[in-house]
């Protein structure tokens, strides 16, 4: 059996008014406390290398893609968001994606593609905003996926650091 001990209220507490005044003083102090709200579009989110935003394809400084269309990311993707069509090229790597699509509406930003890629070609960028009027326009093609390596460097360094820690 549970016996709940009722706390004996003091006269001040039973009068209720002093307690009301105490409560009111708390709320009025909160009125001048620091706001927790961020004014989103004007104050953008703070992103760091840890931020796992939308996946992007890295482009070398000589304007070539790193991706060799191996399909590892396509296979790793749990949301079936990636679709790749390969074609052959004259470069050393011989293959390149002809079409590379990521359906951003399907992508769950899990980062498996980044982990799976053997060529360090796909990275989770710090881009987070996703809004448009049609579903079709949110299926990103190559032209909207490719980013110069320099833009993704922060993330690349961070992942390398993590990997080094794991491998030692």
């Amino acid at each position: 059996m549970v016996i709940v001990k009722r706390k004996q209220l003091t006269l001040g507490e039973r009068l209720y008014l002093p307690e009301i005044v105490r409560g009111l003083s708390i709320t009025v102090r909160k009125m001048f406390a620091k706001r927790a709200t961020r004014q989103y579009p004007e104050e953008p989110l703070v992103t760091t290398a840890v931020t796992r935003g939308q996946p992007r394809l890295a482009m070398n400084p000589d304007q070539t893609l790193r991706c060799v269309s191996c399909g590892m990311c396509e296979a790793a993707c749990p949301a079936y968001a990636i679709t790749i069509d390969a074609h052959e090229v004259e470069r050393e790597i011989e293959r390149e994606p002809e079409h590379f699509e990521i359906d951003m509406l399907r992508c769950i930003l899990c980062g498996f593609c980044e982990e799976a890629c053997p060529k360090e070609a796909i990275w989770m960028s710090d881009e987070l905003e996703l809004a448009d009027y049609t579903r079709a326009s949110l299926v990103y093609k190559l032209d909207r996926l490719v980013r110069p390596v320099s833009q993704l460097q922060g993330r690349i360094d961070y992942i390398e650091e993590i990997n080094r820690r794991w491998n030692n």
Partner: protein
Amino acid sequence: MTVLLATLLKVLVIFGCLISAAGISTLAERKISAWIQLRRGPNRVGPFGLLQPLADGIKFMFKEEFVPPGKSRFLFILAPALAAVPAMMSVAVIPFTGRIAEIDGTPILGSVADLDMGAIFIMAVSGLGVYGIILGGWASNSKYPLLGGLRAAAQMISYELSMILIILAIVAMSGTLNLREIADAQNDHTLLGFLPAWNVFLQPLAFVLFVICTFAETNRHPFDFAECESELVGGFHTEYSSMKFALFFIGEYCAMIVMACLTTTLFLGGASVPFWAEAPWFIGLGSFVFKAAAFMFLFIWVRWSLPRFRYDQLMALGWKVFLPLAITNIFITGLVLAL
């Protein structure tokens, strides 16, 4: 003729100000609640969100009107008007300031109607507001609104009684029912040489009781049993939509404003400015608005600080605490006056 025109002008100005003040109060309510909860509140419409009430009004107009089938359509539509009109009417006797001007020997006073029984008028008329709520609850043909309406009625009756008894004590002290004279009576001398002789200092118990009664009277938190969301969905206005819903709210805020003005008049010396007996009328008006606004702030502040009472606690408080205290207060006042 000019006197008539001046009165007409006063009616228009005071009515306009009341409605705008109700709008501003809704914004203040949202802003202050946000500040208390560490949010920012509406700040997208106009600078600091100042045009928000306007946007809300337009939104209300374009909302779909829905009338639930079953009960009388006429009563359903009548109810919001009945809730809003008394609150707007009772503002007529509030003396916002002293004498403004004199035309042909007739003084133009700071109230629309300088009634000799202003205190009774205001209690009678503002008490009518509850009919709108009961009617709205009944005509909605739904159980929650009905319960809300009944609660509002029971609550009004319980607290109106104490309220009138408290006012009686004030009336006994100033010897008049005219609100302007009650306000003036507080300004003709000082207490202990420095305090203005406002009733809040002469009758502190009555003041506290009266302020709490105004909360119950206007169905405000922590006594908002008529609409108590956690138990009754939305209470009496559950079935209302669009402008009819808005009208209930305008009525509620007007009632709050009237009660704030009434408290100012009865307890804070109305339009007087401490230590400046000969203040011109516009200074007095400013002082009045300032005091009333402070009470409006109190209304909002309390709403966002306290939890709601339980219904039986409300009734027990009204009948077992407030009524005896109010009666005691009258007796003490009578004794002191007789001595």
